[in-house]
């Protein structure tokens, strides 16, 4: 049980996919304009990560080593299709906002990375908690980045205006703002880490 909790918490801070492993930057840069987009992307990616990690760990002994990557991609694509279709059916607004980045979860390097680095060597229960922790870490990172960008770039948070008379800083709503925020946060977390040691 203790190891399972460790697998779960590792992805959130110690091996956070965005700020420590620096994986999956493409969707992070693209969809982090508003918090709603960030949460939607995070949940979709977590669902795919969870499903693919479990299935990969279950059939890891059946897959021949040489064609394992195509097999992983097929499994991941299945879950991405489920996520995309559900999003289209139940939340068309979010689907329109995220656009191409939902299908692109197939090639998200966090998902493939966990399948290749963790799920193919570990039991189903450990892979489940690893996927859940990584997904949650990715979601939290997205929420943090998109909250900063939405607040500074439009003066709002989840669509609600927080401070009256605040002149939004347009640059944070633009792609350059995404690179800026991610770079500064990465630097800040590294600074904290160096300080500790």
């Amino acid at each position, binding site marked *: 049980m203790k190891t399972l909790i460790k697998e779960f918490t590792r992805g959130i801070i110690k091996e956070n996919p965005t700020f420590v492993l620096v994986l999956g930057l493409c969707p992070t840069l693209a969809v982090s304009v508003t918090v709603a987009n960030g949460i939607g992307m995070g949940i979709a990616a977590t669902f795919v990560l969870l499903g693919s990690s479990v299935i990969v760990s279950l059939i890891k002994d059946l897959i021949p080593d040489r064609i394992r990557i195509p097999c992983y991609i097929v499994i991941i694509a299945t879950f991405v299709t489920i996520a995309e279709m559900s999003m289209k059916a139940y939340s068309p607004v979010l689907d329109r906002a995220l656009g191409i980045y939902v299908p692109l979860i197939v090639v998200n390097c966090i998902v493939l990375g966990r399948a290749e680095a963790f799920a193919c060597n570990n039991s189903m229960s450990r892979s489940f908690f690893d996927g859940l922790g990584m997904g949650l870490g990715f979601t939290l990172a997205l929420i943090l980045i998109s909250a900063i960008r939405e607040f500074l770039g439009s003066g709002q948070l989840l669509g609600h205006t927080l401070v009256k008379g605040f*002149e939004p*800083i*347009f*640059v*944070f709503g*633009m792609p*350059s703002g995404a690179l800026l925020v991610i770079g*500064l946060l990465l*630097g800040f977390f590294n*600074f904290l880490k160096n300080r500790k040691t």
Partner: protein
Amino acid sequence: MRNNLIVSGSPHIHKKASVSRIMWTVVLSTIPAGIAGVIIFGWDALWIILAATIAAVSTEWVFELITRRKVTILDGSAVITGILLAYNLPSGVPLWLPVAGAIFSIIVGKAVFGGLGQNIFNPALVGRVFLMASWPKYMTAFPKPFSYDAVTSATPLALLKEGKLVEHISYWNLFLGNRGGCIGEVCILALLIGAAILLIKGYITWHIPITYIFTTALLTYIFGAKQFFHGDWLFHILSGGLILGAFFMATDYVATPLTPKGQVIFGVGCGLITVVIRLWGGYPEGVSYAILMMNAATPFIDRYTRNRIYGT
């Protein structure tokens, strides 16, 4: 007696110039342009210069306290960043704008890279481009010279871009600064006085400014008009921020090449990008983007123009 014998590596020649001495001389050399800006645009210009300078210095102080670095606010570099940022703003902006720009300049343009000597871009220009991208409506409203109220007028380059430059502004007016523009860029006469101080003192060399201005003049002469070789090159030198940029911002010690050969390449590159933006780009003025882009290219220029070490 024994303590007087210090064994150290070369160079052994000692000069009085130090970082803070150079920096304070640069501050001194920017003062004429500031006075001209205040005369042309009124007291608003002075408040903006003061706000940007105070914000830049205090941001550097607070950041160095938090990160427990050595406090270097007395070396004058933050003062220059603040002054140059203010010189790149129209005089009608609200006072929080230079403050926001100065904070961004110091933190993102300089401190996160490790302070003075480590920054890859000119901090003042980083702040200006940030303000330009964030609050364009303030950054493109230029108060009319000598009117001292809220009347705005377009800059000569903006008029040229929109094809509305009907009445010709005399070169003499452009030279003295009787035109719409940023606080520190309009009065060419005052800028040249400051530049002369720096050149005579030897704190900047001619390589970057002269090649920059010459390239801009040559290319605008060739391509500036519908017919080749009919461009109004003098107009392009005297309008916009070219003189301010060439002498005070493209000559930043940290973010420009070290060798004379590299500096010539840097100046020519700046001129090329400026002309491309002015004549064919979306913005009326391209000096700040040109200098920033060449700042980014500086490590490559330095690598390929390195002096051969004697004997290798």
